[in-house]
């Protein structure tokens, strides 16, 4: 795909000259008439200031949580304790004949999602200083654990963590995965096989490395312990003008997950484009009055048989579930008290 293809696509969004003129006329007429400007009430996302991470060591002392995870979730040493039950130190290096090495550093998991920290090291002469890279890491459960009906949906790819030295041959990635993407009901106690697949670079020299040429992988056992809490909400929720049911809601210190059901709606009613609109819609209301918007979508999936939607978000800060008093989804607030 070329710039021309992309520009051609975006050109289609431009207004016609007639539309431009009509909107301007309306605007200037309203101005003359002194019409009141429509103000929309905003929910202010109160995000705690990012903690200064002054520790020089790579792991928190008490929990073993990698500092890069802690920085990603903008946590303090104290916050790390809340997620300590979900930490799996891996520390495995997969070395390839082509000179590349993938370090699988650590996994952080809860009941419904997991995050994997990896470091990609290119051969010495290769500098990873391009504009954008995509590293695909396979995360699979054994077939015996894949007990959920087929589902469709989408999840986000990896995030490149801040590159301290853009002139070197290293990049650190954080991959996330939702439980339903992996075909299971829970990730607690599961064995997950991590297998690097490929690395692509956009533009420039276009690095393209296929890691599947060699059979390297590692298997990690996720913790049995659940750092989260589950609420059976079972209350109506308006979705696109129709009544659905908000079923189970789950909160861990790093994630929010919930299910939506509707008897009257078959799976085809929901399409990926509608589901994407949900990514701006979750807010956590805290005991101290703060409202934290949850923006990181891990996955949105829909059960192929029942039509149930399962959404998993990751928070961008560590929040103990007991500090959350209510959750707003699609503009509707559900109390978690009692």
């Amino acid at each position: 795909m070329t710039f021309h293809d992309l520009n051609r696509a975006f050109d289609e969004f431009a207004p016609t000259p007639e539309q431009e003129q009509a909107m301007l006329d309306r605007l200037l007429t309203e101005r003359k008439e002194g019409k009141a400007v429509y103000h929309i009430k905003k929910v202010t996302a109160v995000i705690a200031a990012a903690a200064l991470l002054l520790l020089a060591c790579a792991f928190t002392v008490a929990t073993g949580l990698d500092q890069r995870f802690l920085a990603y979730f903008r946590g303090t040493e104290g916050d790390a304790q809340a997620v300590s039950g979900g930490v799996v130190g891996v520390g495995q290096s997969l070395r390839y004949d082509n000179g590349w090495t993938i370090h699988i550093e650590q996994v952080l998991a809860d009941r419904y999602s997991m995050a994997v920290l990896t470091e990609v090291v290119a051969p010495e002469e290769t500098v990873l200083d391009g504009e954008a890279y995509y590293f695909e890491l396979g995360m699979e459960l054994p077939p015996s654990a894949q007990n959920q009906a087929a589902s469709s949906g989408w999840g986000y790819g990896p995030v490149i963590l801040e590159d301290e030295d853009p002139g070197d041959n290293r990049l650190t990635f954080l991959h996330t995965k939702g439980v339903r993407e992996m075909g299971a009901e829970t990730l607690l106690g599961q064995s997950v096989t991590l297998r690097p697949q490929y690395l692509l670079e956009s533009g420039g020299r276009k690095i393209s490395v296929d890691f599947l040429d060699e059979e390297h992988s590692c298997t990690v056992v996720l913790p049995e312990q659940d750092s989260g809490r589950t609420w059976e909400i079972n209350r109506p929720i308006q979705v696109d003008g129709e009544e659905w049911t908000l079923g189970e809601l789950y909160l861990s210190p790093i994630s929010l997950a919930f299910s939506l059901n509707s008897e009257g709606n078959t799976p085809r009613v929901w399409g990926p484009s509608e589901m994407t609109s949900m990514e701006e819609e979750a807010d956590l209301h805290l005991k101290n009055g703060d409202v934290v918007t949850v923006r990181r979508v891990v996955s949105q999936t829909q059960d192929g048989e029942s039509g149930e939607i399962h959404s998993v978000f990751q928070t961008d800060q560590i929040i103990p579930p007991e500090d959350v008093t209510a959750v707003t989804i699609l503009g509707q607030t559900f109390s978690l008290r009692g």
Partner: protein
Amino acid sequence: MNSAHRGEEMAALYRRHVSMVYQICLMLMKNVPDAEDATQNVFRKVMEYDKPFRDPEHEKAWLIVTARNECRDQLKHWWRRKRESEEALQHMSCEQHRDDGLKELIWGLPEKDRMVLYLHYYQGYNAQEVAELLGTNPSTVRSRLVRARQKLKLRMEAEGYDIP
């Protein structure tokens, strides 16, 4: 722009940026009436803005951020609206011509993907600038760009567009 600004100044600013603001609004709102309303609201906000813009780049950046925020606010209400009937949707898709197909492909991407692609490839902002506009970090923008471009490419290929 403060209230003292004359209609001509407003019209000039509007003509400089309406195409961009409308493109962002249509990309995010996914339908023409809502995109037009959102565009109007953005320019109403410019009329109310009581500080001067530092320079043309500041003016443009302010409009991008305001357009995105406006659409986000509107989308909070979008779910409550009546959806088109299944029959109407099928009818629309039968009549869909090639240009609408391209729009549909962009609309099928997550909102953040649409924004980074548009700002980087169409408006020419680099990853650092896109990150500042969207309130995220440059490395996130870079990975999102690769991902979004790849997703769009696959979708365009699947729909039969000739992609080199």
